[in-house]
């Protein structure tokens, strides 16, 4: 709920910015922007738009896009005008074909060679200017390193040296360049948070880097961008950018092992978990559960989503997910678990206590 309000806040700002930019340019571009009004309106609805940048890197890319769009619109307009002139200026159907005459060469010479060379040189220069701003900063220039390993179909997130491991959620401090090192444990994935930077592929046996630096606090959605099999569609994650103090609190809490069960019910829930197949795939730091195949559950209850951005992390969905994950995400590696009602309640209570 509170995310939704925040969302529309920055997007009203985004719309206003666009409008201002359009006003400063030639009238012809106003038409272009009218055509594109739905795009800007569209921004108001999600946190995964390339057109609502929340970092200087994404802002540079968005600027590049708007410049290219305007240039393209002008070129397209010229072609369209020439086309209309050519077609509507008819000379009657019976005119004999002209096979001689070499005139008209200047049209492809100007339109096909001179103008493109100028425009393309400009574009290339712009590309070279933008490139460093979206390229990964040197590790020493960044304030924090996060490792993200893509797996079919979730994101295994860890903070090296901080003893923190989580899944499908990156927390970063606002205004600090964060060095994200990505790789893959299985197939090729691609790490993409459009509002914060360009995407970078996650390739087995190779470590790639991308720098994320959020200008403002907020939650930004990311999604796998390289086809990675059955559940490519359900491999999303969130980047939560927070003020430094709040981030430090989060990091400190996440570095603790799971709290020991405080009530008999939680005790029972833990026993259910440790006595089930869960432990083969999941880790809960501080217990015997140390599987590495699935997401780390040490602080499961603190996360926003289940199933890599698929479901809200609420007790009801958690119950449904545990009983029949194949219903929500067919083909994922987690089998359904057959639990008695009371075992399930205890397990849910325990998992909900893992903050």
């Amino acid at each position, binding site marked *: 709920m509170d995310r939704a309000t925040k969302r529309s806040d920055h997007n009203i700002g985004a719309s206003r910015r666009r409008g201002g930019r359009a006003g400063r340019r030639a009238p012809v571009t106003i038409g272009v922007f009218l055509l594109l009004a739905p795009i800007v309106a569209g921004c108001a609805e999600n946190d995964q738009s390339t057109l609502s940048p929340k970092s200087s890197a994404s802002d540079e890319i968005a600027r590049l896009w708007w410049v290219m769009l305007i240039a393209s619109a002008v070129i397209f307009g010229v072609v369209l005008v020439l086309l209309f002139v050519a077609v509507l200026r008819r000379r009657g159907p019976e005119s004999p074909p002209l096979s001689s005459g070499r005139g008209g060469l200047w049209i492809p010479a100007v339109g096909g060679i001179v103008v493109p060379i100028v425009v393309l040189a400009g574009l290339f220069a712009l590309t070279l200017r933008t490139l460093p701003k979206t390229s990964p900063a040197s590790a020493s220039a960044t304030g924090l390193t996060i490792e993200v390993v893509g797996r079919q179909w979730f994101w295994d997130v860890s903070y090296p040296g901080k003893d923190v491991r989580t899944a499908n959620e990156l927390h970063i401090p606002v205004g600090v360049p964060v060095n994200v090192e990505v790789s893959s444990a299985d197939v090729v994935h691609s790490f993409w948070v459009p509002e914060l930077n360009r995407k970078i592929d996650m390739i087995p046996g190779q470590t790639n880097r991308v720098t994320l630096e959020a200008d403002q606090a907020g939650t930004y959605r990311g999604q796998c961008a390289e086809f990675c*099999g059955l559940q490519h569609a359900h491999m999303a994650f969130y980047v939560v950018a927070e003020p430094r103090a709040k981030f430090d609190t989060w990091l400190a809490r996440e570095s603790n092992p799971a709290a020991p069960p405080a009530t008999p019910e939680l005790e029972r829930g833990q026993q259910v978990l440790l006595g089930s197949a869960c432990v083969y795939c999941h880790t809960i730091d501080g217990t015997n559960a140390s599987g590495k195949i699935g997401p780390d559950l040490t602080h499961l209850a603190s996360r926003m989503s289940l199933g890599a951005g698929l479901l809200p992390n609420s007790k009801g969905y958690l119950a449904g997910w545990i009983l029949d994950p194949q219903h929500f995400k067919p083909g994922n590696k987690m089998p359904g678990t057959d639990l008695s009602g009371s075992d399930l309640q205890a397990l849910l209570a325990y998992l909900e206590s893992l903050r």
Partner: protein
Amino acid sequence: MATAELRRLERSWVEPHGLVARLGTVDHKKIGVRYLVTAAVFFLAAGIEAALMRAQLARPDQNVLDPEQYNQVFSMHGLTMIFLFVTPMLSGFGNYLVPLMIGARDMAFPRLNAFGYWVFLGAGLFMYSGLLIGDAPDNGWFNYAPLSIQPFSVGPNIDFYAIGLLFLGISTTVGAVNFIVTILKLRAPGMSINRMPIFCWAVLATSISIVFAIPSLTVATGLLELQRAWGFHFFDTAGGGDPVLWQHLFWIFGHPDVYIIFLPAVGIVSTVIPVFSRRSLVAYDWVALATMATGLLGFGVWVHHMFAVGLPQVSLTFFAAASTIIAIPSGIQVFAWLATMLKGAPVIRTPFLYVLGFLVTFVIGGLSGVMFAAIPFDQQVTDSYFVVAHFHYVLFGGAVFPIFAGIHYWFPKITGRMLDERIGQASFWLVFVGFNLTFFPMHIAGLLGMPRRVYTYPSGMGWDVYNLLSTIGSVILVLGTLAILVNVVQGLAFGPPAGPDPWSANTLEWSTSSPPPPYNFAQIPVVRSADPGWDGLSEPSDLVLPEGHQTPATMPLDADLAAALEMPSESLVPLAAAAAIALVCAGLIADLYWLAIAAGVAVALTLAFWHGPRETGPVEPAP
């Protein structure tokens, strides 16, 4: 010309009737029509696949298809459109038209031509047999490793891909070799290379690209199959392989393939525009050179498909520069077409309308294509729906619109009947509106962060309305395609006779009857300009060559008459060879190695019989 000579010519070229003669025909026109019809059937199949995808994506969180079905459907859609529709369709036009346009009586290697068709048919059916058993390729047309190998791909799905493409590559390659030799050696006397129709330049450029691009695909799919079937380790890091190797091998083929698809299509455009503008093409030589340059530059841009892979920045900038430069030859062509129309007096008919539709959509696709040379923007929107929008503007706008133009333009030549102009124009508007409504919103969905190849998407991302618009557009597009089909069917049944030259066109195929006789031209034409139909100088010669299947051979550049070639007549050997190769593939996919080996021996024996020494007719010196 003496009637007796003409009668002898007709006797030499008459084909026996019956099933065997049909299966064994080497007539480039019959083979061309087979390519066209077969490719059209595959187009309908790919269209059905597209409609299924659009149904699934019409609304968020739908379950029209399950994820595995969706993955098979989108993979087969791409594979079909690229490998089984556009390329063979343009091959069909090439087969039918190139000999007619250059004044020859057949392709240079008629039996190889028949063989190429049978292999294409076999490979297409082979790939579709995977869909019938529910195990079609499910990893997209670029099929990245390691998702394509064990343990991530366990069924036979990807074997249908790898073996099917190896199989199909034979067809594409022999077709290309045939085109190159035909275009360079069989042009009518006087058709020096600077008088050759642009369509032939386009087929030449495409064929040269094919000869150099397909080997990379063959290596890629060959290594893939070795890894899948026999446990080699080319693409898995655990065994010392490298998944990025696949990407390079694939895109070294894959980007030139874009031009392999696109060049013959723009060859159609360069053919149709002068005819309906009533003026010969402005800047003919520039357009010809631009065509060749595009084919060449197409080999230097593949890394722009891999900008997000994490390659060194110096590679990125090199390939970005190359990707920028390749816009120039396309720009030259676009403005040469515009100049031709501006200098001429355009007459609007259905083929020309489709070409105008092409121009509008292709310019949009070209402009969004240049954007991918801007590395950071590419890295932002690659693998999003923006790319899906872009390449449909280039491939549907850039290739399918010209194909539709070509169908309407050459239908009278091929069938001897006219299509209905009103249905034609209605089909154009349906296709044009449907196409833009389907694919334009995808740009926006992509910019709003929608990744491609997702079988579903959540609501609340701002993508719903654009996906719904796309689906509505696809319905209109389907109606437009059906209208073309209706027009073709009614044209075949009721179309008024076309006569030899209904468009008063400038190229040689219109100087013979519609449909042309088996020998194409009773008298070998002599060409005196790039517009033999218009110059008032190019006339049929006295040369008839009535004995056997003969066609003149000329010198590659100046087209001076060099010899009269004896062409082979119908034969079942090409079909037998193709069938034997199909059995090799069947044996490999079914793990019946004895069958594969036995069929391999049969292939060798058939080829030995085909090429074995025999008595050949004399090659006559130039008369």
